[in-house]
């Protein structure tokens, strides 16, 4: 009851100085809306990345040749290694050896940069792949070393007008001057953010692993993905596989293993840190806004010295005066915070609309922003309020 009236009288005072109150709030509005915008964009990016990673199996161990070591030709994986892993490790359900090369794809006078990956039919068990037309590489293609390829939708559109028309058509792959004739058997949909880059994204071409040495020239199998049934034993399985390969190649410390979800965790950690760092920078503007509040409250206390004297003369206690001024700064910050939340929300909607992504503002972000703005109000209002509360009533009454 009493506090309600104190708040009401604080509100009256804020209303009495509309322009000044608004300018003071502006700092808080900008601070809160930038914190909300940045935190929400960070959340949206994280969600997006998590979504992208979700397309990749998490029951995966990725083996790589550690290129930081001095590596010889004999250290790279072979197709026999892949067979050996499958044979010797019962937990492994599929093995995908991979070699990658970079060059161009060509059709008559059309040319496009291309990333060419040689792999096998199990690839689709690890990574999501939506096909727009045709089929993916199958076991038969791999075993019979067929010169077939799955290409991306954008390239299919550019070379053959559309995905369906591309199936069965031939084109050339050029890796460092080594030309190969390929037949299109499938077209995969272009996904996510890559699609929006359009022309500038290199063509993505998948070919059977068994023809990698003919098509990719000097490239090697630098990467083996292993699908396992039980991820809880991932560490154990990783070291077991590495031991098998080391024995075969008669070397040590040339290979590294990483787990599918570990990479996701890492990316998430980086994103969290980035979001936190950017939010902290945005929060600095909130602190500047808070200083603005303190400044205007000090002016208000000086202006209202006589009022403070009158209130004390008729019986206001130290705390009554303190609460009165404190509630003014808190209300100022809460109104500013409320407007800031609305603005932040609108900015997120506008960004989401123009970039065609969803930028959801979480309840937690709003709650934190709200708590933060009242904290700013209390922190920066406390000194002016205490100054008012400690005034000597006689001095205050004499103030002109």
């Amino acid at each position, binding site marked *: *009851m*009493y506090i309600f*009236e104190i708040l009401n009288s604080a509100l*009256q005072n804020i209303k*009495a100085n509309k322009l000044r109150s608004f300018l003071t709030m502006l700092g808080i509005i900008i601070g809160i809306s930038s914190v909300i915008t940045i935190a929400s964009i960070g959340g949206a990016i994280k969600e997006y990345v998590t979504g992208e990673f979700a397309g990749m199996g998490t029951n995966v161990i990725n083996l790589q040749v550690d290129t930081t070591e001095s590596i010889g030709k004999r250290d790279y994986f072979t197709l026999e290694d892949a067979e050996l892993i499958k044979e010797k490790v019962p937990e492994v359900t599929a093995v995908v050896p991979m070699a990658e090369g970079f060059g161009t794809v060509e059709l008559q006078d059309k040319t496009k940069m291309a990333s060419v990956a040689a792999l096998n039919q199990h690839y689709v068990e690890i990574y999501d792949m939506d096909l727009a037309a045709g089929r993916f590489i199958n076991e038969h293609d791999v075993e019979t070393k067929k010169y077939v390829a799955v290409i991306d939708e954008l390239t299919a559109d550019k070379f053959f007008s559309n995905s369906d028309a591309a199936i069965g058509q031939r084109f050339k792959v050029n890796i460092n001057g080594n030309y190969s004739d390929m037949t299109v058997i499938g077209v995969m949909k272009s996904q996510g953010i890559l699609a929006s880059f359009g022309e500038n994204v290199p063509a993505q071409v998948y070919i059977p692993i068994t023809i990698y040495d003919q098509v990719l020239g000097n490239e090697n199998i630098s990467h083996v993905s292993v699908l396992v049934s039980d991820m809880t034993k991932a560490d154990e399985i990783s070291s077991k596989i590495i031991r098998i390969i080391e024995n075969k190649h008669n070397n040590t410390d040339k290979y590294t293993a990483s787990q599918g979800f570990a990479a996701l965790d890492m990316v998430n950690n980086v994103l969290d840190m980035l979001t936190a760092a950017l939010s902290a920078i945005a929060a600095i503007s909130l602190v500047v806004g808070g200083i603005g509040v303190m400044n205007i409250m000090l002016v208000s206390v000086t202006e209202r010295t*006589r*009022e403070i*004297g*009158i*209130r*004390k*003369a*008729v*019986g*206001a*206690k*130290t*705390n*009554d005066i303190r609460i009165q001024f404190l509630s003014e700064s808190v209300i100022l910050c809460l109104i500013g915070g409320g407007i800031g939340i609305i603005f932040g929300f609108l900015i997120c909607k506008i960004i989401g609309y123009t970039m065609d992504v969803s930028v959801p503002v979480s309840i937690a972000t709003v709650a934190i922003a709200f708590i933060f703005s009242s904290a700013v109000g209390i922190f920066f209002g406390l000194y002016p309020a205490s100054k008012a509360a400690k005034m000597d*009533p*006689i001095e205050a*009454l004499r103030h002109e």
Partner: protein
Amino acid sequence: MIIKIENLVKVYTTGSISLTALKGVNLEVKEGEFVAIMGSSGSGKSTLMNIIGCLDRATSGKYLLEGKDINEFDDDGLADIRNRKIGFVFQSYNLLPKMDAVRNVELPLFYGKVSAEDRIARSKEALKRVGLEDRMYHKPPEMSGGQKQRVAIARALVNNPSLILADEPTGNLDTASGDEIMGIFQKLNDEGVTIVMVTHEPEIAACTKRNIIFRDGNIISDVAVKDRVIIGG
């Protein structure tokens, strides 16, 4: 006995200079009295008023208000006494300009934690007692000096204090308004309210019942008023 002051001393110290404003004042004021304190500026009368009003503390000596030793209260305790026991009327009215008469008058009740409903009723009642029932929702800038001072008196009355302290209440008013204010004080005193007033105008002092004259921090004269002027009488 409402006020009992014994050997009250007040020393103001600024740096190395100290000034003795009250030099051992003794004073008693009984219930129902109407006292005028006179004296030139710097005589110590305002200092005494501040101490009686619990706005300031004495350096030494004793001040009992309704038998309670004021020295024993802390700042918030003094605020509470000002709230419940004392009503102030100032020369410059000291009203809050953005609040209407009712809200100005209810201010002491607000700090006395009286409910909103009671506050408004009592505030209106007090405004009626000073004859301002038709100005209740006017703000101070819309009123004349006399009306503002009547609002201030209503504010002083609203808590039914033991004592009203008035510091030059007619100082900013013309003679007619001044007389009006003195008439109200006389009426309130007739109803039993104890009033202590500082003034330097002898005609105003002549409306009270007892005149005390201050000089150099001491009382030099304390007499009952003969041939008291009754306003409207």
